[in-house]
Every structure is written in structure tokens, then in C-alpha cells.
């Protein structure tokens, strides 16, 4: 475990001994502080101002000089809101279930028994970050076309049609699992590093627990924080994803908010919703990591 290792054993060849100047520690430190504040301050402005301006835009109407929070209230009564949210929610839940059903066993197995596969898994989890969703959806359309261009009645045709069923397009969670892979992998990986999985599993197995019981009762509870934050990131991703679902012509929440909701209100609704979902997912994520971090605090990390 990293906490046990003494860092000196890893240190690289020491830097060549150069000018032996006394170290001006006090000055050095104060300089670092100063630019830290500057960098974070400028970035803070860059990141907060657009959000604040959007917030301003959603409740202030320039023509009438009126302040009103009505867009936030209108969200729930807009036509089609319920169906699109329900659809997106179902898609998101299915995405998370498939993602974790695939990812958790694989990552545990790689951590415990097949460390050689870790680079492969890691690179696999990187591909969706650089692959354009537009390109991916082009490919998906082509693959689906192989089915729908075939003879009606063949299993392949039926499969392609079923996948694109407008009531519940199964193709969306299937693609979203790929898109969400990098973020879920990252959260889980960070959590796995802070847990001594090997000892945990050996202890549980040594006491006679079967593999499923070990995973369910010993491993998963320890990965709770990572699992939860991965799930929230995935949820946020599915709710915000626009490219793929709009090109495949489905109507989940993100597409509905752009296309259908605009007639209902003065265009303030969409920004209000995106702002709300952004802040909400951040708040939940922070809360989760904060609660999880408090439990784990002090038990790991020596430096």
C-alpha cells in the first residue's frame, strides 16, 4: 500500500548539486501563495461569471425590467416535460446498471489477478473521450442500417428495429455506457486505490465467504463513494447528452428542452434547466465525496 511505503525508496536520482545558495524559504512561500490566488481568482471569474450571467438572464426580463423566478416554476408544467424526463431517467438508470455490471467485476478482477490488463482497460476508458460522438453516431447508424436495410422478418432486422423503438430506445443506453465509461472508470479507479482490496478479499474469503458474498458485503460497501460519484456523473452526462440522441432523432430531456420547450416560454426555460441540473449534480457530487471522504479521512495517505 502506498501509505506503508517510505517515499525515499522511490525518489529518483537526486538533482545534481549546483550552486549552494541558502534557501530563501519565507520569500519563496509568499510568492507561491500570491500566484496561487491570482490563478485561482482569474479562473474563478471565468467559471462563475457565465453561470451568474445565465442566472441573471433567467429571472430578469430586460423589456419590462421585471424580476421573476417563473421560468423555474414553468419547468414542471411545460408540455412533454414529464415524458421526456421519465424517458431520460430510465435511460440513465439502465446505463448505470449496465455500466457497473460490466465495470465492477472487470476492475476488481484486474486489480486482484490480472494487473497486466490494467493498461488495456485504462486505454479503453480513454477512447470515448477523444472519439467524436458525431463520428460514433455515424458508425452506430451504419451498423443499425445493416439490420434495417436487410429483409424484414430476419432476426437482425427485428433487432435493429427493437433497438430504435421510440418508446424506449435501447440503443441510447448502449451507446451511453461507452460514453460514460471514462468518467465511471476514473471514479472507481480512484476509489480502488484508496482501498486495500487484496487484504479485504483475502480476509473475507479466509472467513469462508463465497465470491458473490465477498463482493456484495465486503468490496462494494468500501467502494460506495466512488460508485456513487460515478453514477452521478453518468446521470448528469445522460441528462445533458444532446449530440447522439438528436442525430438518432429521439426525444430525451436534453433534446426536448432545446426543440419543444421553446414555444412554451420565452426561451428562459432552457438555460434555467441546464443551470439547475449543473448546480444540482455538483452539489450532490460534493456532498457524496465529502461524506465519503470524512469516513476515509486519516486511514490512508501518509504524505
Amino acid at each position, binding site marked *: 500500500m502506498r501509505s506503508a*511505503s517510505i517515499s525515499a525508496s*522511490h*525518489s529518483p536520482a537526486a*538533482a*545534481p548539486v549546483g*550552486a549552494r*545558495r541558502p534557501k530563501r524559504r519565507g520569500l519563496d512561500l509568499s510568492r507561491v501563495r500570491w*500566484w*496561487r490566488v491570482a*490563478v485561482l481568482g482569474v*479562473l474563478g471569474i*471565468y*467559471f462563475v*461569471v*457565465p*453561470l451568474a*450571467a*445565465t442566472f*441573471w438572464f433567467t429571472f430578469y426580463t430586460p423589456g419590462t425590467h421585471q424580476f421573476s423566478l417563473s421560468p423555474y416554476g414553468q419547468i414542471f408544467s411545460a408540455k412533454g416535460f414529464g415524458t421526456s424526463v421519465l424517458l431520460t431517467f430510465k435511460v440513465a438508470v439502465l446505463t448505470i446498471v449496465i455500466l457497473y455490471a460490466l465495470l465492477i467485476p*472487470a476492475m476488481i*478482477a484486474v486489480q*486482484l*489477478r490480472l494487473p497486466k490488463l490494467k493498461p488495456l482497460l485504462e*486505454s*479503453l476508458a*480513454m*477512447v*470515448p*473521450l*477523444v*472519439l*467524436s*460522438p*458525431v*463520428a460514433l453516431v*455515424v*458508425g452506430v*447508424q*451504419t451498423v443499425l442500417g445493416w439490420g434495417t436495410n436487410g429483409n424484414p422478418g430476419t432476426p437482425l432486422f427485428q433487432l435493429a428495429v427493437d433497438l430504435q423503438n421510440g418508446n424506449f430506445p435501447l440503443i441510447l443506453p*448502449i*451507446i451511453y455506457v461507452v460514453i460514460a465509461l471514462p*468518467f465511471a472508470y*476514473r471514479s472507481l479507479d*480512484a476509489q480502488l486505490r484508496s482501498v486495500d482490496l487484496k487484504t479485504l478479499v483475502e480476509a473475507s474469503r479466509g472467513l469462508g465467504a463465497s465470491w458473490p458474498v465477498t463482493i456484495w458485503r465486503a468490496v462494494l460497501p468500501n467502494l460506495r463513494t466512488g460508485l456513487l460519484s460515478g453514477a452521478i*456523473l453518468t446521470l*448528469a*452526462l445522460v441528462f*445533458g447528452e*444532446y*449530440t447522439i440522441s438528436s*442525430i438518432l432523432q429521439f426525444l430525451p430531456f436534453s433534446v426536448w*428542452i432545446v426543440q419543444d420547450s421553446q414555444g412554451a416560454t420565452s426561451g428562459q426555460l*432552457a*438555460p434555467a434547466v*441546464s*443551470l439547475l441540473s*449543473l448546480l444540482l449534480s455538483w452539489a450532490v*457530487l*460534493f456532498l457524496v465525496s465529502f461524506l465519503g471522504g470524512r469516513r476515509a479521512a486519516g486511514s490512508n495517505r501518509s*504524505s
Partner: protein
Amino acid sequence: MISLVKKLGAWGAVLPLLGYCAIALGLPIWAILWDGLHLTNPQNTSETTGSLTLANLTTSWHGIYLKGLETSLRLSLFTAIISALVGLFAAYAIAQSKGRYFKQAVLTASGVLANFGGIPLAFCFIATIGTGGVFLSWIQSVWPSFALDTFSGVAVVYPYFLIPLMVLTTLPALDGLREQWKEASANLGGTSWQYWRHIGGPLLFPAALGGFVLCFGSSFAAYATAKALTDGTVPLVTTQIASILSGNVIAGENDLGMALAFNTVIVCGVMMAVYLPLRKRSAKWLES
């Protein structure tokens, strides 16, 4: 024997994921590569459907499509350099900070913001510095020609999700730099510059360059943001693909869309080929 059984069991746990990726990720990519190199609807009768051809690709490397590719690459390079530099400094500043809540808040915010692309992001910036935006006059007083639906406008917006991505990818490496190494260097008489030149820099370099490559790829891949901001006035590969797909261009140009997608897959492949060796090098030091 027992170890063999264990290994088999482990493979059984990994294979579903690999198989899933082969189908959901590999199959579409393969379809693009295949269709990019084959004719699906021949323009003249001497050619047959499905014959191997470079015609699609040649078209995609000329005229407005070449311009689109070039603009995409230029935009990605520009935004990735800026985001990587700023993100690296920000990550260092965050790694140095002692406040656990602050760190946690920034990390989670980065996770959310790196995901925050597309239409909502475009909304935010349109409300801020778009036509009629709250702060447009401020920006234009220092930068008169600024408009959101131009190259520079898009370049201002992209770092909004690229910088958090850079922070996310480099923070582990910066956290892995141990205080003891700095102390050891100082004890041996090294200056701050020497520490960065001989210890910190080389250790960080792979992670930083890897983060840059990810920023580049992610910027190159972005579609919805650019679409909402510019509506096609800035030619980008991704918006061109989408407009071909949605039939805004002459019918029968499906192959061309494939060829453009082919180009982006190639760029993605180059990115991965650069990134992976770097990732390996940085992991060697930091994961021990």
C-alpha cells in the same frame, strides 16, 4: 492448477466488458473505416456498390472539407495549448492548497464541468457575451471585433470544459509529487528551479502532455457546443458531418460523411497513439 482456475475466473470477469466494448465501440468504428473506403452508392455505372475506393477520402481532403478539417485542427491545437497551460497551473495551485473542502469542491466541480459541454454551455456563454449578453460591451471595449459566433468566440468557450478536464487528468500526478522529494532536493542544495528542471518537470511531463492530448482530442470531438454557438459559420469537421447526415447537403453524399468521420477516427487514433505511451511512463513513477 488452482492458479489457473483463478486466472480463468478473472478472465471471465473481464471478458464481458471487453466484449461489450468490441460491439458497442469497435463495431461502429469498424463500420466507419469500412464504409469510408468503399462505395455505397456509385455515381456512375462503371463502378459497383461495395468496391474498394479512395474517392470518398479524396473528396474529404479538398475544398470546404479540407478547410473544415484544418479549422478543427487549428481550433483544437489553440484551445488545447491554452487549456493545458492554464489547467496545469490551476491543478498545481489546487494540489498545493491545504484545505480539504476546497480541494474536494474543485475536484467535484471539475468532474461536472468537464462533462458540461454542448447546448447548456453554449446557452451560458450566449447569455454572458452573446448578442445582447450581459457582458458583451465589456469584452468589446477591449476586443472590438469579438463575436461569439466566430473562431475566437468558440476558442473562448472551449476552455470552459477543457480546463477542468486538464485539472482532472493532471491532479493525480501533482498529488503524487511528494513533499519529501522537494525537501531532499533542497537538502542537497538544489534551488527551486533545479527541482523543477530535474525532478518535478520530468515526472510531470508525461502526465501534462497526456492531459494536453486529451484536451486536444476532446476539443476536436466537440460538436454540440460549436453547433449552438456558430450554427455552421465556422467550418468544423464535426458540424460538417452532422449537416451531411441530416441531409442539408446534396443527397447521396452519405459516403462523404463516412469519409469525414473516417478522418476524425484517424485523428483520434493518432491521439491515442501519442497518449498511451506517455500514460505508461507517468504511471510507472506515480503508482508505485
